């Protein structure tokens, strides 16, 4: 029996890491023991319940001049990228160069929106 070592494997690990940064929960957290998994936990929260699964620390951004809409938009993009990267089937995962482009876009939108706000 053989296994495949591929860049897809790294993308999966990356997706998991991204979802961990989003939720503050490890993929091995006891809450995922029933088999739901970090990937499905976030996937099920898309598109509009992302705030419920996000690490509460991240929601404090409101105090720092970002509107909850912007935070939601940003968290949703991150969730989508994380979910796409950690898909079960390798071919369904994103290419890492697209990830870089997508996250840079998300970052630019977030910063632009934040700076555009009245103080």
């Amino acid at each position, binding site marked *: *029996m*053989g*296994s*495949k*070592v*591929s*860049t*897809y*494997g*790294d*993308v*999966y*690990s*990356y997706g*998991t*890491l*991204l979802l*961990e*940064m*989003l939720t*503050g929960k*490890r*993929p*091995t957290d006891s809450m995922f023991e029933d088999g739901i998994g970090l990937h499905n936990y976030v996937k099920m929260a898309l598109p509009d319940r992302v705030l419920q699964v996000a690490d509460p*620390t*991240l929601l*404090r*951004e409101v105090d*720092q001049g*970002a509107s909850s809409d912007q*935070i939601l938009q*940003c*968290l949703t993009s*991150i969730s989508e990228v994380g979910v796409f990267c950690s898909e*079960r089937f*390798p071919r369904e995962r994103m*290419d*890492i*160069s697209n*990830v*870089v482009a997508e*996250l*840079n876009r*998300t*970052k630019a939108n*977030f*910063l632009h929106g934040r700076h555009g706000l009245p103080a």
Partner: protein
Amino acid sequence: MLLKSLDLSFNDLEGEVPVHGVFQNASAVSVSGNKNLCGGILELNLSTCTSKSKPKSSTKLILGVTISFGFIGLILMTSFLFLCRLKETKNELTSNLSCEAPFRRVAYEDLRQASNGFSFDNLIGSGSSGSVYKGVLALNGVVVAVKVFNLRRKGAAKSFMTECATLLSMRHRNLVKVLSAFAGVDFQGNDFKAIVYELMINGSLEEWLHPIHTSDHEVPEPRTLNLIKRLNIAVDVASALDYLHNDCEMQIVHCDLKPSNVLLDGDLTAHVGDFGLLKFLSEPSSQSSLSQKSSVGLKGTIGYAAPGTIKIWKDIHSIIYNLIN
């Protein structure tokens, strides 16, 4: 069975026609329409071959081709030797070697001094492949992290060679920066291998995402990453992977990406580290894969390794279990 007739006409062939075999019989051979042929039996009416016909151009051509092939051969040989060195896992090299090229050479004594004799106080982390100590190199005052490989563990020497060779060939702002490496013996004459990195003063992403709350510290430093910091780290890590997957001469798969392998410098810029498990893929195209023996499935970390590899991991366990019983 003998060849009875041979029709080579209008093939624009060149060179000397033989005089033996079927070529002895002019009626059995047709060579018309090949104006560059010469020699052969008289009946074929071909010009006589002059062994030094077109000497200049062909000699030049041969010389050129030989030199080109020689050069290509040299490059191939160098690459081959480089790859061989990667695979040189069992050969214990006791002399001080490897990784020295663009780096400052360090001696065992330098590393021992820098880390206060590899003291517990200087220990900043330990994993399956070895322990990491922080310290200051006396020779230039640089703050470093010294990864000492646990050579008693199977595959540790291979991890060292892999990591060494990889880091030698890579430069990216989001990869850990290697300052030096050492392979030799310690004061007791035991094998000793270490890699010296630039110290990432903010530790690993793991420590930031899951801080350990200890009551010992009077005022625990608030280690929280806000959204934009996490987004920056996410971009940094993805950029490092993009470099490994798509921009390196040989495609590289990290195989063990997880928060404890993402290190943060003073500006919280992320640097991907720990290349002990990486794999080189032969195909230059993106998203390619390489069949490996199933033992590869043992690599990586549960929770972060893709589903297929974990399945293999379980399979191997059941195979071992069956073998033992």
